[in-house]
């Protein structure tokens, strides 16, 4: 009669990838300043300042106190510092309590901790709601007319 919780509510568990210490990853230290088109094939860990553009197909970690003044392209990102620029993340974006983002954000999964500050447009691809277009039309008409007058039907 009753199904176990796992069967009744199927959910996909997601484990964020962690920066492996065995892999040499790109690390920008706290008093290091990087200027230009900063690109890496591996994980990037930013503790200092980066200006220009940042690009990686893997994980970008921005630590608290770090500052990025650039457009960011990354596979995944965990942000605890400040970013001024647009962010295009192909998978998961996590904003921790100390994160400050000033720019448009595009990602697939968004995790925002209480206290994180974000100013910009958020777009997440892959959203499909059944009948969305029709409902949208109706609501527009309602808003315009303010009553249940349907001129089209």
């Amino acid at each position, binding site marked *: 009669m009753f199904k176990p919780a796992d069967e009744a509510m199927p959910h996909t568990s997601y484990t964020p990838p962690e920066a492996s210490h*065995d892999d*040499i*990853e*790109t*690390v*920008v*230290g*706290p*008093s*290091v*300043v*990087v*200027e*230009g*088109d*900063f*690109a*890496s*094939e*591996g994980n990037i860990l930013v*503790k*200092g*300042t980066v200006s*220009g553009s940042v690009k990686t197909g893997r994980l970008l970690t921005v630590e608290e106190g770090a500052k990025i003044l650039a457009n960011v392209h990354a596979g995944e990102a965990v942000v605890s510092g400040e970013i001024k620029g647009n962010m295009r993340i192909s998978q998961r974006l996590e904003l921790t309590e100390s994160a400050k983002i000033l720019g448009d954000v595009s990602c697939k999964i968004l995790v925002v901790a209480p206290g994180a500050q974000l100013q910009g447009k958020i777009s997440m691809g892959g959203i499909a709601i059944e009948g969305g277009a029709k409902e949208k039309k109706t609501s527009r008409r309602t808003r315009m007319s303010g009553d249940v007058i349907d001129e089209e039907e």
Partner: protein
Amino acid sequence: MYVYLYDNFLKHKRYNTVLTGVETRLTDYGIAGKILRLQHYANAEILVEDEIRKGAQTIVIVGNDATFGHVLSRAAVCDVTFAFIPVGPDNTIADVLGIPVGVDACDVLARRRKLRLDVGWFNNRYFVSQLHIPPSDIVVEYDEKFRVASRTSAMELVVCNLKPFVWQGKGNRYVVHPQDGKLEAFLRPVVHTGMFKRETFEAPSIFPFEEMIISAKKPFVVEADGKTSKEKRITIKLAKSRIEMVVGRERQF
């Protein structure tokens, strides 16, 4: 034909037992060969080229990290298979290559598991282990794409190829993979200079790269494979698959 290049320090009698053991094991395997003793100012490239002309097919370096760097910094241009028998202290490269120190290295040599390794190149010579620039006011430009500078003035730079970079601060150890198609640069800005000019460094910044230009207003010291020079601008590049090397099964790449 095998040619063995013995480092000068192996003349010391404390190494007699190890070397006798090595030579006996090599004779057992039937791979014993000519032995040459390296002098400090010997140009390894001329020496190796000469031996190749005489029919050498494998050049075996016998010694430590310094011997390895000394020979390959010049002889990396030679078209021959290299091998390594680590003897004595200061052998960190052997560990990366999966070669045990002492007599057991002969077993690895006899198996002849060969791989092509990347080496670093700077100002017309190769470096296989490590390039080091002591704290200087340098600006680094990577792959002609981005520049790296320090908010404080001086930075120390270490470029690793085969020799692992060990950061003494918290005992972290980064093992560099010679086959990854990149060189790794470790930059450490000086945070504080204390008594007796003892410097405190920040945690290292790490950048993998293929080409890097280092410049400064004043000449800075460059140490590569044990050799020191003063430069104002250097270009460091990666020479992919430059040397063929006999490696062990327990190698770290």
